[in-house]
């Protein structure tokens, strides 16, 4: 099945594979994002510790994107893309309502999410274009981060 490396042995996702999950932009549904994240990481060559890291990181991506939400409108669109060396994940708040202040959650909340992402993934960032808040991360396989 797999190459019997340290991964959890379900590697069935390959380069170029893309998975997308869209759900109402509410905190009570962020659990869906984490669930899919775990299933995908397990199939994209990550070991169990990395899989848990990604589950936490994806939740924080959602929180960063939700900061621009009034919690009652819009959708979160999560995209997973496998490249030859990494898993790229982005979370975009898609809302047709008026764009709120993007970081209404406050500096402290933002800071904790940033600390978590900085520790767990190789690259991450956020941008805010035309009222669409997008947070993203890149996690390399057997990456150099502890």
């Amino acid at each position, binding site marked *: 099945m797999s190459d019997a490396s340290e991964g959890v042995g379900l590697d069935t996702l390959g380069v170029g594979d893309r998975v997308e999950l869209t759900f109402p932009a509410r*905190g*009570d*549904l*962020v*659990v869906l994002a*984490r669930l899919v994240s775990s299933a995908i990481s397990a199939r994209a060559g990550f070991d169990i510790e990395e899989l*848990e890291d990604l*589950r*936490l990181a994806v*939740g*924080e991506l*959602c*929180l960063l994107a*939700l900061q621009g939400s009034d919690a009652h409108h819009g959708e979160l669109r999560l995209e997973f893309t496998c490249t030859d060396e990494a898993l790229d994940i982005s979370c975009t708040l898609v809302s047709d309502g008026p764009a709120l202040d993007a970081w209404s959650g406050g500096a*402290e*909340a933002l800071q*904790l*999410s940033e*600390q*978590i992402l900085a*520790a*767990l993934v190789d690259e991450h960032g956020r941008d805010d274009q035309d009222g669409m808040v997008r947070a993203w991360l890149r996690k390399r396989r057997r990456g150099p981060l502890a």
Partner: protein
Amino acid sequence: MEQQFQIEERSEGGATIVTVSGEIDVATAPQLQESLHALIAQGRSSLVIDLLAVTFLDSTALGVLVGALKRCREQGGDLQLVMADARIMKIFEITGLITVFPIVDSLAAVGHS
């Protein structure tokens, strides 16, 4: 199925022990915040939060705990955390909060952190 989120509390000596189970995240943290604020408002500001049965927590949970810690200390109390799981510990380590909270690894060790 995921383990259900739950909060239970009891008094022991001068402290209040709050036992949380399941996932503390953006969906459930508000309930925890409400419970903790209610306790502190009653003057119960020596809190022990037992996280041994917590399977996941995110930055929202950390924020609620930090907020409650501040309130307890403002009232002359404190807030101790009980945790043993390596994954849960890791979240406090990477955010530097491991040095902010008194943390013990079992209820038996409470007060001796």
